[in-house]
């Protein structure tokens, strides 16, 4: 079993600049931030390394940080420009019983993140959900389609903070 500090220094030694920082916020678990295009390499290392063996991706979730500038567009709707969207990965090793949280932040205008769907197969649907609701583009994902919303949903990604629901969908009125 390794603590977060040891795991962080292992990663830092192996990947250098791709591993950004360790955010400690006791009593909650610490978070290691990774750069979005290297996350797949880091995860493959975390899964296969003999002393780490993170064999389980507990959860993968997309978050809208909403840390950009809020401006009004020509229709009078407030939209967010700039800032980041983040993906959190909760990992656990069922053998060693240690856990970590990884975080990647990608720019809101082009949120490209490397896919881990081929490292843990259940990340496939988690990443489709994050794509569907927040709008991440996962590189090398085998089947990046919407999973919850209808396939022909054109109004964007509902869990973004500046999302605006359409008036009609296929002739059905959407607002109350």
């Amino acid at each position, binding site marked *: 079993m390794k603590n977060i500090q040891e795991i962080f220094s292992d990663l830092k030694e192996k990947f250098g600049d791709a591993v950004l920082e360790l955010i400690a916020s006791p009593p909650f678990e610490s978070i290691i931030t990774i750069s979005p295009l290297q996350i797949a390499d880091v995860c493959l290392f975390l899964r296969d390394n003999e002393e780490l063996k993170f064999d389980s991706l507990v959860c993968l979730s997309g978050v809208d940080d909403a840390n950009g500038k809020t401006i009004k567009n020509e229709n009078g709707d407030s939209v967010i420009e700039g800032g980041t969207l983040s993906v959190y990965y909760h990992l656990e090793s069922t053998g060693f019983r240690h856990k970590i949280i990884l975080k990647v932040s990608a720019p809101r205008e082009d949120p490209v993140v490397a896919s881990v769907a081929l490292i843990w197969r259940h990340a496939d649907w988690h990443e489709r959900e994050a794509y569907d609701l927040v709008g991440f583009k996962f590189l090398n994902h085998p089947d990046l389609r919407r999973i919850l*919303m*209808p396939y022909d949903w054109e109004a964007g990604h*509902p869990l973004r903070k500046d*999302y605006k*629901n359409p008036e009609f*969908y296929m002739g*059905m009125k*959407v*607002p*109350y």
Partner: protein
Amino acid sequence: MGLLDKQFAKEGIVISSLEDLLNWSRLSSLWQVGFGLACCAIEMMATSASHYDFDRFGVIPRNSPRQADIIIISGTVTLKMATRIKRIYEQMADPKYVISMGSCSNCGGPYWEHGYHVLKGIDRVIPVDVYVPGCPPRPEALLEGLLKLQEKIRNESLVKKTA
């Protein structure tokens, strides 16, 4: 109803109007589409089970809309599901009836304001005969809804569908 009003003592003959006979036979065997959506469906299944016994009113779940007379919309209708429900309803043969069960299918329920994915009432897609309020309604409430529907069918006219 007057179905057994005029009965001859010996020959086993009953005189009734055709309307009464048709309405009585319709309301006594309302076969429902075997179809559930959310937590209301659990209550609907409890209503079908031995304790509340939907079958005593002639309600039997059928696995094809083509063999069913009634569809109980039991739960949250998402926009994605609404298109499917419309198709199922269109596949049912006339005469067909709809019970909207629970707040979600009546009006959107707790998702009325922020539910970006929820249809705010199934009556925006298909015509509803009886609304059963509740979140979810107890089996007794669903039985009451069924009795109300039976009442409606009992007063139907051959020339004009009222329910």
